[in-house]
């Protein structure tokens, strides 16, 4: 199927020693691979492994050029190209199908497929007012749409409106749009099957294979390893920005790919594993569902012991972040949650906060901070609102006067305790670096003096140095105050280095809870939603026997 063998043909795409650095944070390093016409390349890797950055480079996204460009070379059919905008990439024949749909709800499938490439009829006014005055040739547009749909092999009603299409059809319409673009030689698909049902995914795989036979080569990014193995000619496994392995489906197995994706030698810093004695349960969750966009929790049951650091891991979009948000009442949720023995009514943020729970949100700039206000406001705010701290009661509590002096004091206290680099307690949060902003969010939670502390994605978008400090602070608080901490993170290594037990969430359910000391591969398998039976009895993985 792949014409890799006839070495005479120059590869359609060659990626030669490509690397990328974001503000001193090495994201991609020495990536090499080549792709021939009509070949499908599978690209797999954990979140943050650099997949999307690689695609952004390939597609000439402005975010790359704005942050200092990339090193290394990209060759299309042998000559080097440097795309300054997505339109250059499109002209060079690269089509991109993003995960979130870019369809116009009010346009029919035909109009969506031919967006900005509609076939038009000439009329004399064009000489005066330019080409855009040409009238649309609906019949020809319908013909082109039918042709693209037939190539796809999945019959979509060309007159159906974007908004009324079932999810699967939307995905196919987007692909049809790229196919209609005559110049498309390389199609990049970013998790196309993530939202599809099993049956639709199979149909998509079949039609993609049909496309390959017509000479269109593809880069297929997916977390469903089974699909990658079935469809792709080549598989590239990325980890921490480096190509860890380039294999063919025949030479490998799902299990091996998963372990390579996840299995990373743990940094030496993981402290000795302390033995958690069986203390009483402080938080018990039964059949929790949370309606959070992109992070739906369907049915989660787990319990957390007092004083424990409990980790929640899993791939993006599987629902791990939904748990903390649901319990804190920020998104519509249901099921029964008992805190310190008493049931907690959900969907009421104030009530959750009043039950001595605190939450460091994953979306720092969006939810975690008042960017326009100074640091002391940010740190003292939640405590003030929930526990009337930093407030002087006047006229017997009728008026609660904001005590700026107390706020300044607590802010300065946490500034040196957490080493927040800033020009003073009145500096606005927006002017702080990512790491310092996260420390302010942590301080905001610590001030409440919670018994249960939820921390989501503590180290996202922070430089390496600050990551270590943030994790140590969390462990420090747990040891000093005995507070139970629930850390949600997509960085498996961090969870293993900080937590006592880790629960893995896959497609809205907990696929398993393991002690943090278990080998990384075990978590990898849980993450990928493969049934544990896949783990061969005595397989050797990366030198460790099971």
């Amino acid at each position, binding site marked *: 199927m792949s014409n890799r063998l006839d070495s005479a043909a120059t590869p359609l795409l060659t990626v030669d020693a490509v690397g990328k650095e974001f503000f001193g944070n090495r994201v991609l390093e020495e990536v090499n691979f080549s792709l021939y016409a009509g070949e499908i390349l599978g690209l797999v890797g954990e979140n943050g492994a650099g997949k999307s950055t690689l695609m952004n480079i390939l597609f000439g996204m402005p975010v790359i050029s704005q942050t200092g460009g990339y090193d290394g070379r990209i060759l299309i059919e042998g000559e080097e190209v440097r795309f300054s905008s997505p339109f250059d990439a499109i002209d060079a024949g690269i089509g991109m199908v993003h995960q979130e749909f*870019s369809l116009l709800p009010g346009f029919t499938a035909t*109009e969506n497929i031919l*967006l*900005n490439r509609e076939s038009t009829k000439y009329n004399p006014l064009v000489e005066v007012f330019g*080409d*855009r005055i040409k009238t649309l040739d609906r019949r020809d547009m319908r013909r082109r749409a039918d042709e693209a749909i037939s190539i796809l*092999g999945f*019959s979509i009603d060309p007159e159906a409106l974007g908004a*009324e299409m*079932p999810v699967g059809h939307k995905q196919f319409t987007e692909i049809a749009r790229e196919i209609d673009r005559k110049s498309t030689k390389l199609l990049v698909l970013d998790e196309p099957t993530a939202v599809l049902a099993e049956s639709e995914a199979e149909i998509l795989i079949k039609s993609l294979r049909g496309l390959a036979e017509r000479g269109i080569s593809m880069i297929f990014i997916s977390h469903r390893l089974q699909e990658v193995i079935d469809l792709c000619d080549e598989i590239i496994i990325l980890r921490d920005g480096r190509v860890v392995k380039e294999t063919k489906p025949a030479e490998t197995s799902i299990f091996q790919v998963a372990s390579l994706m996840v299995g990373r030698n743990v940094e030496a810093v993981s402290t000795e594993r302390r033995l958690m004695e069986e203390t009483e349960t402080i938080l018990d969750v039964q059949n929790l569902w949370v309606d959070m966009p992109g992070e739906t929790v369907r049915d989660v049951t787990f319990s957390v012991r007092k004083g424990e650091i409990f980790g929640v891991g899993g791939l993006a979009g599987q629902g791990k972040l939904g748990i903390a948000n649901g319990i804190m009442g920020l998104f519509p949720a249901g099921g029964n949650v008992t805190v310190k023995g008493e049931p907690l009514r959900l969907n009421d943020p104030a009530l959750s906060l009043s039950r001595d729970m605190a939450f460091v949100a994953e979306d720092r700039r969006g939810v975690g901070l008042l960017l326009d206000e100074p640091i002391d406001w940010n740190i003292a705010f939640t405590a003030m609102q929930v526990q009337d701290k930093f407030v002087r009661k006047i006229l017997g509590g009728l008026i609660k006067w904001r005590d700026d002096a107390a706020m300044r004091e607590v802010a300065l206290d946490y500034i040196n305790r957490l080493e927040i680099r800033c020009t003073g307690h009145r500096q606005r949060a927006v002017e702080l670096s990512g790491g310092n902003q996260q420390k302010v969010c942590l301080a905001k939670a610590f001030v409440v003096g919670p018994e249960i502390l939820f921390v989501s994605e503590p180290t996202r978008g922070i430089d390496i140095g600050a990551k270590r400090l943030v994790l140590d602070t969390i462990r420090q608080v747990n040891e000093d105050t005995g507070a139970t901490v629930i850390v949600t993170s997509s960085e498996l290594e961090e969870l293993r280095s900080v937590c006592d037990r880790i629960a893995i969430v896959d497609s809205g359910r907990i696929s398993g809870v393991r002690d943090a000391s278990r080998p990384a591969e075990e978590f990898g398998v849980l993450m990928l939603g493969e049934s544990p039976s896949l783990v061969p009895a005595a397989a050797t993985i990366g030198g460790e026997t099971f």
Partner: protein
Amino acid sequence: MTPPVKNDSAVHKFTGTENVKHFLISNSVPIIFIALSAIAIPISGFSAGYLIQEMLTRLARNSFLVLSLLIPIMAGMGLNFGMVLGAMAGQIGLIFVTDWAVVGIPGMVLAALISMPIAAFLGFICGSVLNKAKGREMVTSYILGFFINGIYQFVVLYTMGIRGLHIPITNPQLVLSRGFGIRNAINLTGIRRALDNALPLTHNFGHFTISIPLGTYVTIAAFCFFIVWFRRTKLGQDMRAIGQDMAVAGSAGIAVERTRVIAIVISTVLAAFGQIIFLQNIGTMNTYNSHEQTGMFSIAALLIGGATVSRASITNVFVGVTLFHMMFVVSPTAGKELIGQAQLGEYFRVFVSYGIIAVALVLHAWKRLQERERARRGLRGE
């Protein structure tokens, strides 16, 4: 080649009752106004002939202006409160034409030709300002209307007519007694009803005769064809795309900002022509007031016709103008009959004009909030 697989999930068809319910909801506003007029007409005691004649003249007078609102709505820029700019340009054209005493249809065409570059320029300014205030187009165009009105008054009230200055207005009836600045009330004798009487058609139904301003209706029909044709051009399609989702249109390579400016320029120029047709029907122009009301009454009329901030059709225009002006004619007398206060009817119709816009804006914003809610839930694949 793998044979195309017939997919099973047929798209959900609307059942009968749902269709009727949908129709009622989306046209709730016109239905209310039909009911309102049905009550008010008998009370007001106007004869059928008078009402029909009144409606015909007012339809001719206002339709062009209301139609000029369609294009910005199609491009997703909401109700173009900045159409006042076009009205001002039209009035400047009329001032020159009256000064030069050019009469009849040639006078109107000349006024239109003079106002076209002015309206295009003002439309360009309005478009670029709106591009800076994305998401807040309507309030910005509203305030821009006042701002440009200030400049318009500066130009018309203080520069026109001064001997030395570049804008020579010699006709004494136009200039204020103090030697410069244009009078507030100008008599457009030259082009009064020029277009209306271009193709005079009177028809008598038994006991009353109706004169139909055919010339204007032909112009309006031409404008409707232009809109229908324009919707089928590539530019029209681009505007529809931008109206739906600017980000998606932009990523497909459509020049979003440029297209939005073009939409506003077209709408402003057409508003200028509309104002000329409007004033030739009325016969007199008050230089400093008549353009202010045009924006608000046209938008109120369009909304009464069942249009919304994001979707408007030609039928909405005609239904809206008829219902709005029916209410406008009938309510003062109905008010007098009911409570003996003609003034009450006057204020009632002002309330209805403002009220309908407020209601339409609230409904639009509320529905959009809910759609975003439902879309988010839909995305989760419930």
